[in-house]
């Protein structure tokens, strides 16, 4: 089965085409274009206008790269949520148009679950992981239990990427700030005390953000602040992930989301996994960030398990939580 997936939850519009081969996911193409605001953060409407302006070309480019014809596509899937309403609607509209014009079925999928499934789908040995999903808006520790992907821990306030971006904006870095903070952190070595806030398996960043901004106002070295932010937040993320693994007695850990491409976060989780005898998995960067291939792959899994969706019911859902999805495709 070949599926074309359209991702559009936030600042990226992505179209990916995947093929199911022996229950594994073969990515044929995965084109991602991101909206970059000139100043400040993402305005939902402007991001959606950006997506609407280029979506047709992104679909064409993805089909060309995949070397399949439109006629070979068996299924069209799209990100139903969670995300920014205007962006979700743009992706869904494109998916509906494509589904109707190709006369192929449509499938709306959960964006967070797609981040998990693309790991299991593309990485050998990754079967039943605990996912640490870290992006701009989302920070969740997810694992399969009792028929659903349950959220064992999550942020109580803002996502980790959001925390990094907000700090970055305060100190004059461009969006997305994560990679710049990662570079600056490499040059820092003086640790500045920051709040370390975990509650059970949940986590909070807003106190740390305020404290970090205060250090900047007090003229502490930016490199040291960046180093301290990374060391503190990533240690807390790694700890809650390990707590979930111990709690669920699972021995695989998977990273997903844009912040997962941070090398220091990868290293920390890798060391944690090694020390508890668990396996560590991280997809390639273009499958970690928001992308269409993961949307396509989850569409395949859902369709093959018997789920069907009609175009007239293909609503978006801005607050589509991870644990609302009945996971019918897993035993």
């Amino acid at each position: 089965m070949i599926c074309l997936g359209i991702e559009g939850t936030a600042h990226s519009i992505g179209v990916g085409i995947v093929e199911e081969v022996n229950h594994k996911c073969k990515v044929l193409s995965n084109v991602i274009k991101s909206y970059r605001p000139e100043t400040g953060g993402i305005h939902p409407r402007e991001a959606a206008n950006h997506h609407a302006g280029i979506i047709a070309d992104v679909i064409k480019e993805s089909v060309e790269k995949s070397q399949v014809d439109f006629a070979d596509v068996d299924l069209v899937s799209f990100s139903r949520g969670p995300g920014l309403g205007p962006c979700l609607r743009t992706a869904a509209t494109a998916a509906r148009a494509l589904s109707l014009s190709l006369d192929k079925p449509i499938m709306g999928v959960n964006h967070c679950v797609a981040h998990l499934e693309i790991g299991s789908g593309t990485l050998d040995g990754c079967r039943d992981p605990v996912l640490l999903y870290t992006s701009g808006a989302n920070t969740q520790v997810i694992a399969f239990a009792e028929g659903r992907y349950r959220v064992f821990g999550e942020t109580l306030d803002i996502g980790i990427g959001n925390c990094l971006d907000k700090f970055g904006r305060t100190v004059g870095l461009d969006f997305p700030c994560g990679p710049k903070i990662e570079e600056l952190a490499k040059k820092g070595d003086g640790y500045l005390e920051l709040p370390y806030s975990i509650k059970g398996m949940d986590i909070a960043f807003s106190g740390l953000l305020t404290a970090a901004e205060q250090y900047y106002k007090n003229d502490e070295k930016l490199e040291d602040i960046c180093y301290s932010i990374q060391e503190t937040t990533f240690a807390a993320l790694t700890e809650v992930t390990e707590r979930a693994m111990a709690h669920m007695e699972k021995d695989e850990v998977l990273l997903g989301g844009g912040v997962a491409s941070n090398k220091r976060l990868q290293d920390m989780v890798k060391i944690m996994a090694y020390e508890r005898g668990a396996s560590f998995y991280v997809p390639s960067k273009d499958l970690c960030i928001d992308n269409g291939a993961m949307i396509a792959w989850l569409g395949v899994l859902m369709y093959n398990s018997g789920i069907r969706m009609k175009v007239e019911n293909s609503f978006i859902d801005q607050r589509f939580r991870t644990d609302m999805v009945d996971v019918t495709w897993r035993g």
Partner: protein
Amino acid sequence: MGNKKIIYKGAEAEIYVSDYMGFDVIEKRRIPKSYRIKHIDNRLISMRTKEESKLITEARLYGVSVPIIYDVDLDDAVITMEYLKGKRVKDILNDLSEKERQDLCRKIGESIAKFHNNDIIHGDITTSNMILLDDRVHFIDFGLGEKNGEIEAKGVDLHVLMEAIESTHSKYSNCFEYVLEGYKNALKDDANLVIKKIQDIVKRGRYR
């Protein structure tokens, strides 16, 4: 100290069975984590070892069932405490009858109220951290706890349990209602303020 046998390896500590002046005891040993820098590692380990032993000792004074603390070694981050040979609530909750589950959950709520009445915040109230022994629910693992009288802190404390029940005992999510019944009965202040706070915390989360 006699022979030690590891019986559990948690996320942050190893649990050994040992003996202490003739008693069967648990040694909870917090292990250094090499994924985090030394500064953070030392701070967390020493803070949690200290806080946990203090809070367990204090909770006992207020009638909460907790293990007896025999010894605290801050250098090696080891707490020696009573070995509770009971069952984890996590492992039995799903197998009880509805009536038994209701009774047990009410008891849990009453115990939480007892320590909340005295501004003790547990920090990680999950069914893994409750041991049923001689018909009493014992609370363990106060490592993420603190002394805090704010309604916010009490709300967050109960919110952790709510999520644990939703994720680990999803078929019996009414359990949390029973917990709140017991909590209301035993809390000295107006429990509705705390319950209102839990709803606020849920709404603050992403996509609620």
